[in-house]
């Protein structure tokens, strides 16, 4: 089910989606009860680069948490690699998350007392793999994002763009296949934003499946396809709509 070695990032070559949401909703119990996500359906193919655009409070963070296995949907089906994750135990979901999904956050989330390379290595700790070779893998990942020369710097001595590149290196060091980015450029100036987006483009070219959640149109414009979240509802933005073939499947009568 999972791709522990991470050698073939572009899996699912048979055309089956890596991520498939069917009528997923999320309601936070009140009072007052908050319906953060109305029935949403979505399919993401391996190697896809999907921009999820929406203003703050639209429900896109909720969507990201569900997609990242950090939260469970209230109703609906979520399949990852063709497996319904609702049937997985908490530990299984954690294992799946650790091995298949890389995260890039708006606020980087680097441990302040660890060097860049140690922060990258942390992503390999919970996989339970051998200690030997971790440092080398982390250094390779840093070299990938062009930061091998700052490997032993503390995050506080790095610029915002550099910190986010360290975070990207951490997201891809375990070769997860899917990288979830939550406002990856939200804390960066425009020049640095361009550099990080270029890096994401390259990751997608290398075969990573990318989901970028943002409120900035310019950032979403770099994605191959886009969906919009508004008031907890997913709508298509100029993409092809293929029912059950699984590129994108809006429901609930709210198609744009």
């Amino acid at each position, binding site marked *: 089910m999972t791709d522990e070695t991470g050698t073939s990032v572009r899996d699912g070559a048979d055309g089956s989606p890596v991520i498939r949401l069917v009528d997923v909703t999320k309601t936070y119990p009140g009072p007052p009860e908050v319906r953060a996500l109305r029935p949403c359906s979505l399919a993401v193919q391996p190697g896809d680069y999907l921009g999820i655009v929406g203003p703050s409070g639209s429900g896109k*963070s909720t969507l990201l*948490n569900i997609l*990242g296995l*950090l*939260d469970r949907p209230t109703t609906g089906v979520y399949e990852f690699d063709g497996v319904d994750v609702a049937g997985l135990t*908490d*530990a299984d979901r*954690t*294992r799946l*998350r*650790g*091995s298949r999904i890389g*995260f890039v*956050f708006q*606020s980087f*989330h680097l*441990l302040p*007392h*660890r060097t860049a390379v140690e922060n990258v290595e*942390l*992503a390999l*700790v*919970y*996989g*339970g793999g051998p*200690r030997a070779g971790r440092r080398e893998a982390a250094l390779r990942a840093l070299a990938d994002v062009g930061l091998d020369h700052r490997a032993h710097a503390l995050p506080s001595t790095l610029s915002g763009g550099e910190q986010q590149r360290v975070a990207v290196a*951490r997201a891809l060091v375990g070769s997860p296949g899917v990288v979830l980015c939550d406002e990856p450029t939200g804390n960066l100036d425009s020049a640095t934003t361009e550099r990080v987006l270029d890096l994401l483009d390259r990751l997608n070219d290398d075969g990573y499946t990318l989901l970028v959640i943002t409120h900035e149109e310019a950032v979403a414009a770099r994605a191959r396809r886009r969906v919009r979240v508004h008031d907890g509802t997913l709508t298509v933005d100029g993409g092809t709509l293929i029912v059950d073939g699984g590129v994108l499947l809006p429901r609930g009568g709210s198609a744009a």
Partner: protein
Amino acid sequence: MIRSRDLLAEAAAGMLQRPGRSALTMMGTVLGVGTFIAIIGLTSTAGGQISKRFSVLQATQVVVQDAAAAEATRPTLSFPDDAERRLGRLNGVEAAGLHWPLAPAPVLSSRPGAVAEPVSGIEVHAAGPGVFPAAGVRIQAGVSYNTWHDEHHQAVAVLGAVAARKLGISHLENGPAVWIDGSPYTVVGVLDTSERLPGLLMSVLIPPRTALDHFGPPSPEHPAQVLVRTALGAAGTIARQAPLSLRPENPMSLEAQAPPDPRTLRDTVSSDLDVLFLALAGIAVFIGALGIANTTMVAVLERSSEIGLRRALGACRRHIAGQFLLESTGLGLLGGLVGSSLGVVTVVGVAVQRSWTPVLDPVLAVAGPGVGAVVGLLAGAYPALRAASLDPALSLRR
């Protein structure tokens, strides 16, 4: 899934992340465990001193003192002539000896008459024949005088080894004599050692009746006393019986001192030190536990985004709980280690200062860090559970 070495490394990194705070957090455990070790160590050290001092020698010794003499204005002797024989009849008495120093000190010399050069620094004691077995002496040369000498008021003397050397008497073949206030006394024996009355070695001893004839009863400043050697365990009884047996008509004039009961001594030490200080140490350990719990709780709240990140990177709830438990246990263990060291140093320091032998059960040195670790483990339990139950999605947003 995570390797235990990795978990340990993560916990260690968490502790070292804020070394100052970790050190302060450990302080309560350091104080508590340190006090525990110090109290137990000092108690056992003091107890060791008591048992060392409280030897068999002491346990079998009763001293009967002339209580009436202390209030007397002229020289008196409250003991009867046959004091030694009366005490000897008591069941449990092995030997009894009456003795007192002659005061004012008579002039002592090893030669007669005008050519005499007084020898100073040597006391003359009246000592009954029972003193020799009671004090546990060893005769180096000659014999000790006996009851016959005493009852017949013989002018004989036994010398302590030091006194004999000072008087220039090295052997008894020629029948040497010492002159006390001008009168000759034949030296019949020389003492080598004296277990209970080491002062005898620096003295010239003459029979009591002879002493009474020539020098009168003992002065009120230096009253007579009887040294009694008893069978093991009989000392207390003998001390109660001795005054009655010696002076049935006025037992209050005599005062018998029994050795202290070792059990009473130990009880005193325990009740005085142990209870109070162990309670204080317990409070310190408890406060230490609260400190660790509080710091770990603060750390959990502070590091909630780190917890969220670790969950995102594949850490299960139990990994998170394990890490914080390890951190708090580590703090407790280190605190216990430092506290034990300080406790041991305190015990040794006090012992050195009082020239005691430090007595400390080595198990304690191991138990100290163990207690600290358990305290840390218990203190970290609640914060660790809180950390594990944090919602990763929520904590990542902070």
